[in-house]
Each structure stands twice: as structure tokens, then as C-alpha cells.
């Protein structure tokens, strides 16, 4: 770094607001209050106000020190993190080490460690997304997991109206699990590809963490039928399973699936099938079917994130995939620390990172399991399951996008008095005083 003449040090040190700014020149002479300094540190001031505060700070060493102390260190996010397996845990970094990050002319170990971790997660996520079938094969078959069973083509009934005459349909399994319920009605391929064309009267179950487990679980089936069935997810072919006693490996799988279906409407289910005959067992990724289905969706305003975001969400989801009883919205407390959304399941005793976006997050709003959070540069995320999975939302109207900082989010249940939970009205306020609202859970937006 270039050095300045020593006289500059002296003159900078000698400067005082009361000397440099004559009386009556403006509010810069007086020390800004804590509120103003906080808003300055959080980049929440208007340009005029920011200039005023900067003018004072340039001359006042005490206020500069307050601001410097008040801005948290980048890595100090939480003092206590409960989950030991949390992949992206915020650990306090000694300030000394931070200071030497650049001056030591070598990369510090924590940076390398996080970089290595991020690279590893990106690789795992990409492998998971590209070749999920291989991972599924490695999973031990569960005897008591109830899924739709594919009958051999010769013995299975045919659907007369199906354009694919040889298409088999899933028939009920004779699995002994009493807790399992199954709906083994398959749809013709063309119909199954469009979840919007679900038949009237079909029961649509809202997405649930336990349900997500079925996206991957035991989707083994006859190799000759695998492609057709796995690519045709349908609500009618959903398997309902009360089994949740899975190991850690499955938890990761569930999370990955959750990322993959982050924009799926609640009615979507992947077809999960298992052939009882081991000789013809062959796993087929359900994820591919889901992703293929997702590509056809153009109506939703929700867009899927980048691979990096997905990788990050895989980690978030993996660490946040907790038993349903623990994720009860009633017990979840949210907060934002240093631009990271955190949640607590024990009334603030311990906190865990729920979402870290590319830009710092500034605000959040939650209602039951619905959580919205927004931040700088139009960052907006939504979770419908208390932060287990997140979807990035980009509100736009007529090619005009939300790009300014999101400063406040409000959720209002439109039919608060109704027993059936309906869509929530989301109102997003921005730093340039725009107000964006959506009455359909973020699919379409209005700007006020």
C-alpha cells in the first residue's frame, strides 16, 4: 500500500468536526446517534444522510471507532451453534488473524478450509444431481417401506385410453406394513408429465418433510419400465409412507431432493416404485423425472438458483432436516445476524444458520411454516417448510425486476379466519421505497 506523507497523518489527527465544520453548517458537527450509526453501518441510509454521516466520521475518530466496533466481524455470526454436524458453521475468527489475512501475503488456513469444503460440497451436489441413480442403488432396500410395485408387463392390466398401449400400471403391493398406504394408479406418460392436469378430486397433500423422503426412497423397479415411470411423476402415483426411521445417508438424499423440487407446487409427487424381485431391481433416479418436469414450468415466478446455491442449500437442508416435531413453526425463532438468517428451535438457547445468500440478508418474516427473507440487491428467498428448503424468488413486472435492497417483508394470511390455510399476501418493502406484493405466495407480483 502506498504511504502518504507524514504531515497527512498529523493533519488528519488534528482534524475535529467542531473545528473543520463551522457552526451552522449542518448536523455533521454533532455526533450521530446510535440509530444513525447503525443505519449507516447497515447501508440503510439515503445518499444525503450517508454523506452527512461520512462527513462527520471523516473528522471524528471516536465515532469511527464506534462504527468499527459495531460492525461485526465477518465470521462472527453466532456465539453458540447447537448442531455439531452443521456444515457451514460460523466460528468466531480472531481479529488478529483477520487483520493478517492480506498482510501476511499467504492465504490463511480457515479460508482454505472453507474453500475446500465448498468445493467438496459442489462436487457432491453435482454428482447427486447428475447421477442420483447410482446413489440410490447404494441404498439398502427397506423391506417395510411401502411403495407402488410394478407388475410385469404381461400380468399387469392395461389402460385402454393410454396412448402407450404397453405401458404398465403400478398395482398395489402386498407389503405387510400396516402403516403404509399406497395409491398405485399410474397415468399415461403424456398425462403424467404435466402435473397441472391432475384429475379432479385427487387429494393433494402439501409438501412435508416426511414426504420428501419418498422422493428417493426405494424407487427401484423393473429396468424396462424405469424410464417411463420415473419420468412421469404424478399425484396419483404418490406413495404414502409413514416410515421415517432412516439413517443419516437418507437425510442427505432427502435434502437433495428438496432442493430439486424447490419450485414444485404442493401437489407434485414423484413416482416411487420397487420391484419385489431382486433380480430385476434397478434403481432409477426420481430426481431426473422431477427435474425434467420442472423444466417445463414457465408460469411460476420462482426460479431455481445456481449450482452454487443448490450446493449451499443441500448443506442447509441437510443440517436443517430435523424431525417434524422439532420444526414446528410454533417453536422456531428467527433472527438475522451479519447478513445470515438463523433459526432457533429452543427459544433462542442455540442458533443455527438457516440461509446464507450471495448478498447479506436484511429482514425476514415468518408465518407458521412460511418464511420469507430478503436482503441486498433484490435478494428474496422463500421457504414453505420452516427453513428446511429455500427457493429464490425474483419478483418482476413487465421486465422490471426487484433489484434494490429488501428492507422489510410482511406476511398476511388473506383468509385468516378460515380453517383451511390459504395463500398469504406477501408485502416486500425496498430501500428505494418500492412496495412489491404478491397475493399468491410469490408466483405473481404487483408493484405499488
Amino acid at each position, binding site marked *: 500500500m502506498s504511504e502518504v506523507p507524514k504531515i497527512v497523518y498529523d493533519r488528519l489527527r488534528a482534524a475535529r468536526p467542531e473545528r473543520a465544520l463551522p457552526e451552522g453548517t449542518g448536523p455533521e458537527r454533532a455526533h450521530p446517534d446510535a440509530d444513525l450509526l447503525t443505519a449507516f453501518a447497515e447501508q440503510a441510509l439515503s445518499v444525503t444522510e450517508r454523506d452527512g454521516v461520512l462527513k462527520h466520521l471523516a473528522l471524528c475518530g471516536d465515532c469511527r471507532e464506534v462504527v468499527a466496533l*459495531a460492525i461485526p466481524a465477518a465470521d462472527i455470526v453466532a456465539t453458540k451453534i447447537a448442531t455439531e454436524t452443521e456444515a457451514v458453521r460460523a466460528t468466531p475468527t480472531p481479529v488478529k488473524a483477520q487483520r493478517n489475512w492480506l498482510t501476511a501475503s499467504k492465504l490463511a488456513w480457515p479460508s482454505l478450509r472453507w474453500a475446500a469444503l465448498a468445493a467438496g460440497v459442489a462436487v457432491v451436489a453435482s454428482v447427486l444431481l447428475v447421477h442420483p441413480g447410482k446413489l440410490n442403488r447404494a441404498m439398502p432396500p427397506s423391506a417395510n417401506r411401502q411403495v407402488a410395485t410394478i407388475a410385469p408387463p404381461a400380468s399387469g392390466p392395461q389402460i385402454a385410453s393410454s396412448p402407450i398401449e404397453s405401458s404398465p400400471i403400478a398395482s398395489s403391493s402386498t407389503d405387510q406394513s400396516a402403516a403404509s398406504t399406497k395409491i398405485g394408479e399410474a397415468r399415461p406418460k403424456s398425462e403424467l408429465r404435466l402435473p397441472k392436469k391432475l384429475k379432479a378430486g385427487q387429494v393433494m397433500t402439501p409438501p412435508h418433510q416426511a414426504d420428501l423422503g419418498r422422493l428417493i426412497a426405494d424407487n427401484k423397479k423393473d429396468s424396462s419400465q424405469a424410464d417411463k415411470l420415473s419420468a412421469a411423476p404424478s399425484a396419483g402415483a404418490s406413495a404414502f409412507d409413514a416410515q421415517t426411521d432412516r439413517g443419516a445417508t437418507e437425510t442427505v438424499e432427502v435434502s437433495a431432493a428438496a432442493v430439486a423440487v424447490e419450485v414444485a407446487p404442493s401437489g407434485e409427487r414423484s413416482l416411487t416404485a420397487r420391484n419385489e424381485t431382486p433380480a430385476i431391481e434397478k434403481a432409477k433416479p426420481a430426481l431426473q423425472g422431477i427435474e425434467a418436469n420442472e423444466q417445463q414450468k414457465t408460469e411460476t415466478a420462482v426460479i431455481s438458483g445456481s449450482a452454487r446455491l443448490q450446493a449451499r442449500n443441500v448443506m442447509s437442508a441437510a443440517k436443517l432436516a430435523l424431525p417434524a416435531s422439532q420444526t414446528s413453526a410454533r417453536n422456531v425463532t428467527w433472527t438475522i445476524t451479519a447478513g445470515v438468517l438463523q433459526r432457533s428451535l429452543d427459544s433462542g438457547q442455540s442458533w443455527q444458520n438457516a440461509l446464507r445468500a450471495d448478498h447479506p440478508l436484511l429482514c425476514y418474516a415468518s408465518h407458521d411454516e412460511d418464511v420469507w427473507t430478503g436482503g441486498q440487491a433484490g435478494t428474496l428467498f422463500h421457504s414453505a417448510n420452516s427453513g428446511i428448503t429455500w427457493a429464490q424468488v425474483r419478483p418482476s413486472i413487465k421486465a422490471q425486476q426487484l433489484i434494490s435492497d429488501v428492507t422489510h417483508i410482511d406476511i398476511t394470511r388473506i383468509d385468516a379466519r378460515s380453517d383451511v390455510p390459504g395463500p398469504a399476501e406477501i408485502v416486500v418493502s425496498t430501500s428505494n421505497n418500492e412496495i412489491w406484493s404478491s397475493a399468491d405466495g410469490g408466483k405473481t407480483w404487483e408493484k405499488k
Partner: protein
Amino acid sequence: MQISAQSGHGADIATALYIRSGAAAYDVSAEQFAAILDEILRKYFDSAHNSAHASAEQKADFCAGLRLEELALARACAGGNERAWQDFISRYRHKLHGMALHITRDGAHAAELADSLFADLYGVNARDGVRRSKLVFYIGRGSLEGWLRTVMAQEFINRYRKQKRMVSLEEQTEEGMQFAAAVAEPACASDRTSDQRLEAATDEALAELSPEDRFTLASYYLDGRTLAEIARTLGLHESSVSRRLDRLAAGLRKRILAGLRMQGMSHAQAAEALETDVRDLRLNLRSRLMQDSGAKTFHEGKVPAQDAGKGSN
């Protein structure tokens, strides 16, 4: 504009703000919340720089941009609402201790600082028999957590100043304070003139900088902040700060030189004046004076010999 005295559209805004804040959960009525907003508006818009041309719409927008939920929580805590305090403690208790540790870097001092702030927030010190919580000063322009951190930093600096003022004479002696040399005055008129011209040129060059540039300079060179810290404060990337500092250092030198030349110095003189540190100059003067006195003594010693020679001749 008075939120509480609004009717029609304004009243709708006030109601919407009240609903958004969730103040009802802490037993804060719509009227009370409107009064809080009025007080904040008065404080903000009645100040000299904001009073002009502040329309009702601007004020409504200002209110909409506040952290209403946290404002409601803070004011409910200040009002002594038990549920609000439970929420506040569950959200911020651990964080406050973490903040204190970050600021003080010492466990004992951190606990002391956090406890002291908690007492202030609760309002242990009653004024005129009324408990006054520090949370009434939060107006919601930034996050409540950030405000707590700022208040804690201010408290820490005030406390540090107090302790510094109360340093005992023994401690001063240990630190060698009694041996501190008086600031030497420039030895001669030419040095003083040169200093004044240099100071004037430097002040002029610094005054031409934008507030952000000057803040960057002071933070880096004077306060010893790292590029990362400055970048975080200004919302920039570290490399931007680094480039800016390089540009500022080079620009300042040029401007000071130009200023000195404007005051009648040649280029060489200006460059020499700029390179010479005032403090170094003073040290050189002192050493030169010491050498002079030695030479004088030696000279005095030689005089009698010369005189003796003359006398012998």
C-alpha cells in the same frame, strides 16, 4: 404529518403500519404505536436538514422503511411488557454476550459490559421516579441488533475514556509519563513558515477530498483499520478500497506539492518540505544544538592556547 391525527388514507397507513409491526402481540395499542411513530417523525423531520419539503407521502414512506417489528419489540420492552422481554431475551441474550466479547476481547470485561447494558436497557436508573429504559431511543432505522451493538460500542468507549482519565500517578510513572518531553517549538522563523505552508497545503488538499475518501484515509492510516474492515463499513470490496487508497495517496502528494508551489516554493523545495517530517526536523534540531554546544566548549578550550601562543610570540 401526525400519524395519530390522521383520517382517511393516512389512518389506513397508520393501521397498516400497526399491523405490520405486530405490536398488538405486546399489548401496544394502535394509538400508542401511532404516538411512537409521531415522536420518531418529529425527531427526524423537525431537524434542520429534513424539515424542508417533507411531504406527508415522504413521511409515510419513511415510516414504512422503519424496522417496525423490532421497533414494537423495543418500545414494548421499554414499557415493561413481560412477553416482549421474554422475546427480547430469547433473541438477544446470547448475542449481547457475544457482541461484548467481540468488543472487549476479554471474558470478564465482556460479562461486565453486557450486564451493564442489560441494566441500561431495562432501565435500572430511575429519573424523576420513572424507570427509563434505553430502548426508548431506538427508532428503528437500523436493525435492533445493530443498534445494540452500536450502543455497546459507545458504552465501551465511554468506559475506556473514563478509565483512562482515572489512571493513577503510579501507573503513569510506570508508563514513563513523567519523562515525556515537551513538544519542541520550531527553532527558527524559516522552519515555522515552512511548517505553516505545509500544513496549509495539506489541509487544503484534504479538504478537497470527498467525505468517503477522507474517511477511508483516516480509517486506514490513522486508525489502522484493515482493508476488510473498511470495505465492510463502506459496503465495498477490499480491492476497491485498496485501489482507492493508492489513488488517494498519489493524488494527495500531487495536490500538496501543487499547493506548496502556489505558495511560492520551487518544485525542489516543495518536494523537500513534503519529504521532511516535522517531527524528524525537530529531532534533528535538537541533536544539532547538542553538537553546537559541544563544539563551542571545544572552541573555548582552544582559545587560551592560541592566546598563549600569541602571548609567547
